[in-house]
């Protein structure tokens, strides 16, 4: 079983293309590293800390999105709204204490998103359509529950997320942990292998007797949990939340996933690659800022580079086969 689940890209004929792709990737990362390190002020503690904090929010969502892309379901347009809604739940339930609030919000994000995964897995419903429906329902439900008001913490405890451990922001530690756990699930557990297989060829997976409903539901559940974690970090940082909190995070997350080199067609990808993607985009933004580019030029250059990297990856993938 585990042999079957290894993506079939090991044939010797393709090694050349594979190495070429790898070379381009390493060269691109090296170029960005040189560009970053030669920028005055990049290595200052202030800028590194800002970078670490900034990547943790979108990073958590991006790791979650990787699971959805990996299982062949392209992307979800509802993860940003899930982030916001989980943040609302987290702040509102802080009156029960920090740890219970954390668990309640994580459970909320998990259940909401797992339900979408069930529809996608069981009925083979279209993932983008399901996510748009979920987005509408989340927006409506949140407006009903909050009356459209901002939510402030119902109790103490968010200071924990603003602290540092050994000089590293807690935000970043939680993000790193998310990446490590995500990568562990993808490459070291049975369910992770099944996700890869379902993503690369759902029909073969069904023929092999794999429960694709359970596999996709679990992938979505993990995605929801990741988005909820991102929401809690963001809520703790701003000290309040509304449904605008996560607006646009879907696009940033899928951009990071694609820049990291996870294929949009499913069946390949890893949390580690997404981590690289998040770092690349964040470093670019910081470097452009430090080099004194105006905000509008930062947007344009980031957009062009993201487009370029996505095209490079897609070309490399196509050549491999």
């Amino acid at each position, binding site marked *: 079983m585990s042999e079957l689940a290894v993506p079939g890209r090991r044939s010797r004929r393709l090694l050349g293309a594979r190495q070429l792709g790898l070379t381009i990737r390493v060269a691109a990362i090296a170029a960005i590293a040189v560009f970053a390190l030669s920028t005055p002020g990049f290595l200052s503690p202030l800028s590194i800390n800002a970078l670490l904090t900034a990547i943790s929010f979108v990073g958590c969502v991006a790791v979650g999105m990787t699971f959805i892309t990996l299982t062949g379901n392209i992307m979800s347009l509802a993860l940003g709204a899930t982030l916001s809604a989980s943040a609302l739940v987290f702040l509102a339930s802080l009156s029960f204490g920090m740890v219970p609030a954390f668990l309640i919000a994580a459970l909320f994000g998990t259940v909401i998103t797992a339900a979408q995964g069930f529809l996608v897995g069981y*009925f083979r419903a279209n993932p983008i359509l399901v996510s748009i*429906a979920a987005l509408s329902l989340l927006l409506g439900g949140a407006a009903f529950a909050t009356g459209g008001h901002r939510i402030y913490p119902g109790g103490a405890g968010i200071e924990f997320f603003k602290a540092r451990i050994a000089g590293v922001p807690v935000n970043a530690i939680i993000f790193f942990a998310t990446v490590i756990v995500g990568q562990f699930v993808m490459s070291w557990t049975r369910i992770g292998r099944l996700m890869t297989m379902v993503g690369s060829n759902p029909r073969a997976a069904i023929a092999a007797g794999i429960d694709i409903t359970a596999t996709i539901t679990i992938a979505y559940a993990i995605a929801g949990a990741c988005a909820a974690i991102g929401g809690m970090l963001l809520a703790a940082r701003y000290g309040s939340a509304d449904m605008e909190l996560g607006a646009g995070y879907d696009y940033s997350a899928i*951009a990071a996933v*694609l820049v990291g080199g996870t294929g949009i067609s499913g069946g390949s990808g890893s949390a580690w690659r997404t981590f690289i993607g998040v770092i690349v985009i964040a470093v670019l933004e910081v470097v452009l800022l430090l080099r004194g580019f105006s905000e509008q030029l930062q947007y344009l250059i980031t957009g062009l580079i993201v487009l370029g990297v996505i095209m490079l990856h897609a070309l490399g993938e196509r050549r491999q086969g």
Partner: protein
Amino acid sequence: MKASARLLLSPAVRPFTIMVGTIAALGLIDRGTGYFFSVGTIFSVMQLFATLGLVALGLGLSMLVREFDLSVAGMMSLAGCIAVLTGGTSPWLGAGLGVGAGVLSGLLQGLIITRLGLSSVGVTLGGLLTLQGLTYVLAGNQTVSYPNMAVALGLNAPIAHLLSVRSAAALAVFMVAALVMTFTHIGRDIIATGSDRRASRIAGLNTDRIVIGVFAASGAASALAGVLLSYSLGAASPAGLSDVLAPAAAAAIVGGVSVVGGRGNALGIAAGVLTLCILRSGLSAIGVPPFVHDLVTGGILLVIAVLDAPDLARHMTAWRFSRAERLAHIFSKESRDGAAT
């Protein structure tokens, strides 16, 4: 009875069934107070239609050929900005440049997708970010105002109390799209490309040209939406239009466009957009809080998602079988028990 229900829910008719059902439901809730069935409601529905409709048409066209144009929101804000910046003295010039930019970016994206054989989600996501960046640069990271207020007033001036120039323009574009898709081979070619691209290519159809054309048309339609919106608001802003994608996709899908390609038409998309706009203005006219609109839209989309899911029929059959089997089991047990006593 069953046959007529099947006809009403068949893919080609369903968008209109949903629209009429929505109007009837809102009419019932309204109970003749006259807030819903009023000229004002129709006017505001058509104003919403003017913006959302064109974007949904563009996105829907891309879905017809089994692609997904994520960049529509970027096209919209870019074209709006270009029009406002260049159309100060001649609104036609601004509109032309704005729509031209939309066509050009659509062509470029279509070329990249077809010539390099890439997935449209990735390319148009990059396109979205790039177009947004370009808009920020052009607008200098701020809201730019349009000096020619006469144009703004003119575009929103009512025609026969029901339409404005803006919504009439959107309707006209839909008419043209519907005519082209019904009476020329282009419509057939688009459906063929979306249904089975490889078969269409083997049959001698230049599918690349169709896909590039569809992306150009999608760019043009969303750009026109952006131009009309920015002119009528008298301002363009690089931020704040990005939440148009989800409603536009929802409208196209309610309008009968299949997410797996090859099914849908312009009139259906128009009905889908109208349904969402009627829900929004109708509910607010009746005085229902806005969140109900989101909940109802989400509910409709969820039902469509499950109804259109390829495995629904398989599960239904399986359920029916297992129920029949259970019943047969119980009956046979009863008859056995009966025989024993």
